[in-house]
Each structure stands twice: as C-alpha cells, then as structure tokens.
C-alpha cells in the first residue's frame, strides 16, 4: 500500500487545486499555463532520465567516471517575461530538479559541455586564453517545417498539419538512415519540437567530439538546396549520376513519399501558379512549353496530379534530349519535385555547425501550443501525429483521472513504475511509451 500512501500525500492536494476544476468537456485547451507547468515539473518531468543521459556514464556508478562531467554542461532557462538565464549548471540530478522546480522555466535549453563549470566561468576569465571553451556537444539538427514554405501549400509559417507532416517524416528518414549507415552513428534521438519542427540529437561519443569544421561537413553532406530568393538555380547537383546517399534517399524514401502522399496533398500539378514554378526549372524550353500547353488546355483538375507527374516524367526521360539533357534535367528537378529532404538548411545548418549552440531540451512544453516535446521513433515517424501529442492540459487531466482511479488500478502498471517511478504510472500508455523510446536508444551511456 505504499503507493496509496504516496498518492494521498501532499502532492495529491497540489493537483486538486488546479485540475479539479471541471474543464470544458471535449474542448482542447492548448493554452499554456504557468500553474500547470508547476505541476508538470513537480510530478512529470523526467529529471533522472535527463541526468542519466547527460552524464553519459559519468554518474558515479562506473569506475573511471569523470565527476565534473555533468556540471560542466550548460543549461539555460527562459523564464516568464522572457528573462533569459544562461550558463546554469548543476552538480547532481536533485540540484537540477530543485532549480527547475523553483524557477519553473518556460523553456529549458541544453548547451555544450564546457572545459570548466559554466557557472564559474568568470573566475577563469582572468587567466585569459579561452580557458572557458566548449569541449563536447551532441551533433544536433533543428529541422523546421517553415523552411519548406515554397513547396507546401496546406499551411505556412509555424503551422503544421497531417498533410505536411510527411515532409518532416521524409527528412527524418533520410537523415536518420544516413547518420546510421553512412556516418556510423547509433545513438540518435529524434524529438518533436512542440510546434513546427523536429530536433535531432546524435549522442555517440564520436559525434560529441566533432570539431566545428567536421560538423559543417556533415551539414553540407545533407545540404542540397541552395540559393536565396533571387537566385535561379535551387538545387546544386552536378554530374550525370547521383551520389549513393542521394540515390538511396531517392529510391528508398523520396519517390514513394512523393507519389503516395505529397503529390495529392499539396496539389502541386493542378494549379497553374504551382506547376509554373516547376516548369520554370526545366532548362529545355521546348519541354516546358509543351507541358504548359498540354496542361493549360486540360482544365479538369480531378485527373491531373499523377497523370501530369507521369507526363512530365516520361517527357523528360524520353526522346530527343536523351543523352545530354535527360539526366541533368531530371536531377535538377529532383529536389523540387520530390521535395527533397533537409533542404531547409538555414536553421539547422547553423545549429549543427557550431558546438556552442543551444537546443531546447526534450520533454519541455512548447509555450505556444502546450505540446510536450516528446521523442519520435524514426522507424515509425510516418504515423507520428504532431496534432495529437500530449499537451500540458491533457497530461494534467490524465494525472488527475489517474489519481482518482489509482486505488482501483493500483498495481496495474508495474513496468512503467520500474521505469519512471509512480508519477509516470498515472499517465497511461502514451507518455510512458514515448519515454520508453528515449530510454531505449538515447540515454544509453556510452
């Protein structure tokens, strides 16, 4: 009956204050609420997992551990009113826990591991000579859906829906496969950023020790889409054949995803202003105008999508331009048509290239949407639904419902209790399932 005792304790009363108020039924309240956040940090935030992950085995349980490792890691907090606290560091998991509980940050960012404790950086600054400098950092990618704005038409800016999520899924699959197969990394954590993107943490020790230059080279390896608003050529691909990485991405992921999902959901070929962008990219004007005439005459938009796509494919691959133009044309169009991967560049390239960039911690709550930044399993990223990830409000409802039911169901969640203690037990399968991903493949000390 230990469980019961715990639940009847003061923590229970805390919940009462906020959640017992009857919420409007069936209405999704996504608003972000500092008081809810307090409860979230009080009962749900996985401190010990974050600590275990960030320690990478330097947690006192292994013989050759580096005691100072965790406390050289920078955390930064964004408080209410946008007060920004950088260079926070903690000696232990419980120190971190109490700081987070006390400050109740709206956002927690994780920075690099520095050469010295970032809290004490000023005492080293006298010595000069960059004593305070980042020494380790996960390789990170920050992929943002708004970078796809010129090829998606369902939403724009920071909105995301099930029609454009496949774009993210494609990016995840392509990058994840390349990180594993090409670069040989194994410990990769994908996290939904809470609103319009995903974050990727590559945690292998080899990845954490990459220099800035090596990070840039990886970012460039993935980087296909080039050029700003005023440039003409958007994809930079030379040579008649694709590099194996691109060829594999194309056949394994892109063609499929393009033909099955995006072609229909984004209606790229049915509206003149959309397909015109694509026709403009065809260097051979005769092909472009042939297609244009054909499509303009044909006003029935119902048949258009894959018929037109096939018409174009055939025309590009056939006939007169065979030897010289064909491959190049096709390759050049490839990005635009297949909405090639991580073209979004900007945001993530910069984040990825430098060790000392900050990235939001997993399991934060996004202040605008109230969604929790949960891990995503790259093998099932197609079925991930950004619109139904747990929100702060939903979690507290579950927490509340769980605490009321707890006496009846006591003992029914033995497995999750083992993982996360009693708190997570109350949340039903969703949260515990997400947590399991992270525990399984990222928090593995290396």
């Amino acid at each position: 009956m230990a469980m019961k005792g715990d639940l009847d304790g003061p923590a229970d009363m805390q919940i009462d204050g906020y959640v017992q108020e009857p919420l409007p039924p069936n209405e999704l309240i996504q608003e972000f609420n500092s008081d809810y956040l307090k409860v979230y940090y009080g009962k749900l935030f996985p401190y010990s997992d974050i600590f275990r992950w960030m320690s990478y085995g330097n947690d006192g349980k292994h013989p050759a551990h580096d005691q100072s490792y965790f406390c050289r890691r920078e955390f930064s907090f964004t408080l209410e009113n946008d007060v920004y606290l950088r260079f926070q560091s903690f000696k232990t998991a419980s120190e971190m826990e109490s700081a987070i509980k006390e400050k109740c940050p709206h956002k927690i960012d994780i920075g690099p591991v520095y050469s010295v404790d970032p809290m004490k950086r000023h005492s080293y600054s006298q010595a000069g000579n960059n004593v305070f400098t980042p020494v380790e950092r996960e390789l990170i990618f920050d992929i943002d859906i708004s970078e796809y704005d010129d090829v998606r038409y369902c939403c724009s800016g920071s909105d995301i829906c099930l029609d454009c999520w496949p774009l993210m899924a494609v990016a995840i699959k392509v990058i994840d496969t390349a990180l594993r197969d090409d670069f040989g990394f194994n410990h990769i954590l994908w996290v939904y950023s809470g609103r319009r993107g995903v974050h990727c943490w590559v945690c292998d020790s080899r990845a954490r020790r990459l220099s800035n230059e090596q990070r840039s080279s990886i970012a460039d390896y993935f980087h296909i889409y080039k050029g700003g608003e005023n440039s003409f050529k958007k994809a930079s691909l030379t040579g008649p054949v694709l590099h194996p990485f691109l060829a594999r991405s194309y056949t394994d992921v892109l063609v499929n995803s393009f033909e099955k999902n995006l072609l229909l959901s984004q209606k790229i070929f049915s509206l003149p202003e959309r397909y015109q962008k694509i026709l403009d990219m065809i260097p051979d004007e005769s092909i472009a105008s042939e297609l244009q005439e054909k499509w303009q005459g044909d006003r029935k938009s119902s048949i258009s999508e894959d018929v037109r796509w096939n018409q174009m494919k055939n025309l590009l691959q056939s006939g007169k331009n065979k030897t010289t133009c064909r491959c190049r044309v096709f390759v050049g169009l490839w990005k635009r048509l297949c909405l090639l991967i991580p073209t979004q560049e900007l945001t993530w390239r910069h984040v990825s290239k430098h060790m000392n960039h900050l990235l939001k911690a997993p399991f934060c709550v996004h202040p605008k949407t109230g969604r929790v930044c949960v891990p995503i399993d790259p093998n099932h990223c197609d079925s991930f639904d950004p619109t139904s990830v747990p929100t702060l409000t939903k979690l507290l409802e579950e927490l509340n419902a769980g605490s009321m039911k707890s006496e009846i169901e006591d003992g029914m969640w033995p497995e999750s209790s083992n993982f996360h203690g009693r708190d997570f037990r109350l949340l039903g399968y969703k949260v515990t399932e997400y947590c399991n991903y992270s525990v399984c493949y990222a928090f593995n000390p290396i």
Partner: protein
Amino acid sequence: MEIIRSHKKTALEVGSSLSLYRCAPHLEVRLDEFELYAIDRLRVLKGISDGLSRGRKPDEMENVVSELWKANMRHPDPSQMMNKDIISHFVLRLVYCRTEELRKWFLSMETTLFRYRFRFESSESQRLLMNEFQLPYKALNLAEYEGVKDKLFQVSRSMGQYSNVDTTFFKVPFEEVPELVGSRRVFLLKGNAYVAMNQAVSIVVSHFRSNLSKALVLTNRKWTSTIREQEKDRLTPIVEALSSSYLGPDYSLPNEFAAITLKDIDQLANSSFPLCMRHLFYKLREDHHLKHRGRMQLGLFLKGVGLKLDDALAFWRTEFSQKVGNDRFDKEYAYSIRHNYGKEGKRTDYTPYSCQKIISSTASVGDHHGCPYRHFSEESLRAALAQTGVGGRALDDVIDKVKHHHYQLACTMTFEAIHSTPCDTGINHPNQYFTESQKLLAPKVIILADLEIFYSRFVISSFITLFQVLTS
C-alpha cells in the same frame, strides 16, 4: 647558416622542398631577415586570400599560388630557399598566434598554400610526405574493394569522372576528410570514407591543418606566458606590428570621420552602399523584416560605417515594429542587435563581414543576404544594377565578370561606373566600398597602415634564434 635537413631528409632526397614545419629550426636569424622573410611570406598569404575572395577556381588558384611563391619566396642563394620558407613560417606563427581571428586567417591561408604546394610535388614525394605524417591507412584489399566497387564507381560518376575507379583507395574515418564529405566526393560507409589516391591530398591537408592548429594554440600560450615579456624590446614590437599592418583595417571600429546618423542613412544607402547592402536595406524598408543572416550582414555593416547602438536600435525598430510590433521587437530582436555591438552574451564586438565571407555564404528561401553578383540570377542582377543607374556598356561588363565568377571585380566595376572614377585597390570589403565612396563624395583624409614603413624601420643586425624563442 646551416641548411636544416634533420626532419626532412626523405622527401628532400627526391627533390621535394615542401616542409611540414614539424619543429622550429635550430638556426640563427638576423633580425632584419626575421622581418623581411615574414613580410615576403605575408605577401604570398595575402595574395592567396585575395584569390580566394575573388572566387578563383582551383586551377586558377594553382597558378596564383605558384606565381606568388616564385615572386616572393625566392632567395639569391638557393641553399637558403628552404630556410627562408621555414623561418618565415615560424615567424608568422608567432605573429598570428595571438588572437582567435588571426589564428583562423593564418591557418586557412597556410593550409591553402600547403595544399597547392603538395599538389605540385611528384607522386613519389607525395607518397613520402604521406609517410612522414605517419598516416596509418592501408589501401583497400581486393575483397573489400569488390564489396564497394559499384558505390565507388557511382561516386566518381556523380562528380563527372570515369577514370579513378582503378586507383588505390584508402579507408579513413570520415572526420579526417571533412571537405570531401561536405562536397559528397567520397563514399561513406559506417563512419568510414573511401578516399581515392588522387584525393589523398585532402587527408594530408587535414593533418597539416590540425597539427598547425594545435601548434598555434601552444605558441599562443608561450607567447602570452613568456615570449611577449622577454622580447618586449626586441621581437614584440615587430610581431605586433606585422599582423595589424598588413591585413588592413578590419572595419570593426568606425573612424571618427565616418560616424553616420539616422537622418543621413537613406541618402547614404543610395549613394555609397555596395549592392549587397543596398539590396538588404531596401528589402528591409519594403518588407519591414529581414531574416537572421540578412540582419547580421546589414547590421554589422551599419555598425562599421558608424551607426551608433542607439541609432541602430531605433533604425531596426522603425522597420520591424511595422511588421511585428514594438513588443516583439524588444523581446526578440533587440537582443541580437545589442549582441552585435558586444553588449550581450559573450560580449564580442563583432566585425563586419568581408566580401570573402559574404560571397561564400549560402542563402535559402526568403533570404536576401549574400553577394548579389554571386547569388542573384542574371535577370535579378541586371534589374538591381539598373536601379543604381548602371547601364549600357558598363552593365554588360559587370555581367561578363560575373559569368567568369569574378564577383569582387564585378563589384569594383559597379563602383567605378557609379562614381565615374577608377578604383585601383579593388573592393574587398563592403565597408571599404563605403569608405572609398565617401572619400570621393566628401574628400577626407584617412590614414591606412602603410606596409613600407617596415622596410626602413629596423635595420638591426643582431641575431636571434627562433628555436630558442619558441621553446624557451
């Protein structure tokens, strides 16, 4: 003086003159040579830097480097050539070890120099040099090769090559060949890059680079802990003068003549901004918004031309508030402007971007930063130039330069067309464009550091031993 052979014997035997600069030479150097050699080498490095910023292609760079080397690094006594190479390198290490910025520049130029000199070597001496680096890589054996042959072929075809599939391949950790990885010129499998013999220069260069990078940090430590003080009457003044003089001004501090205020800014943008800044400026006026890197490029430029922090904040607020409101501006954007002025974060006073940096930047959807000559389509560029009043013959000349990738020359020609005055120095920095333009429009005296003073300043023939200085 003796010729140093100790650490270079093998490659010397096959006639190689390329040094890896493993350790400082055990030889005496006259103080005037100390300086003159360094200046000669600086000319080479500066030439390389110019070549790179003009966007020269590798084969053009090969000529540039070869010419520069011949012109500056010759010595009347052939036996002294190699000493001159080594001495000048170590002197410049001392000069360029002292700040992050200097180290970065030196590292990048020396690495480029080394790369091309390595390419001039015969394949036999290349192999010997590789041995000297003690690179632990074995060539792929037949079974391994067969396993990945198709992929290797695919990679070389993707670069438009057909020939190198029969050459030897090495398997190296991908970390060692970042440039090959970044440009997708190697096949990657489980963390290993498959490098063809003719790409081996990348491996060697990356080792050279990382050795030199570490050495610079160590030299810096010695410099600050002992050398600077010990040599304060002899080497320190020379060393300190050498770096600041030759690189030219970095435009991070606007000089007093050039302070500008908000009310002048529109008129100045029209008369004296280079095309890249003009474009950003008018886009900002039009959209009341710029993405991050556009804000950086324009913001630091404005700082460089003398816009004070308060004016800068007012300037950006006027525009951004029309789009995002005052509140959001204060919360999200004001920080980064203060940051640029060294008032936030790590408090670095950031330097305005040079042409080289702007030309090599990449742009994406919604971006307006970068170099218009490089990043615009011909059509957009023509339109943009027409707005500045450049037309007819001059416009065609500019476009012609762009087609040959001479972006800075194109900018220089634009400058000349707009100001109807030749610009002999060429444009290397947007802030230089501004200053030159202002000089013509409102003549003011600006004193730039003059290299020549160094020739007359020291004629001291005391001897020093670099080795002792560097290892003390």
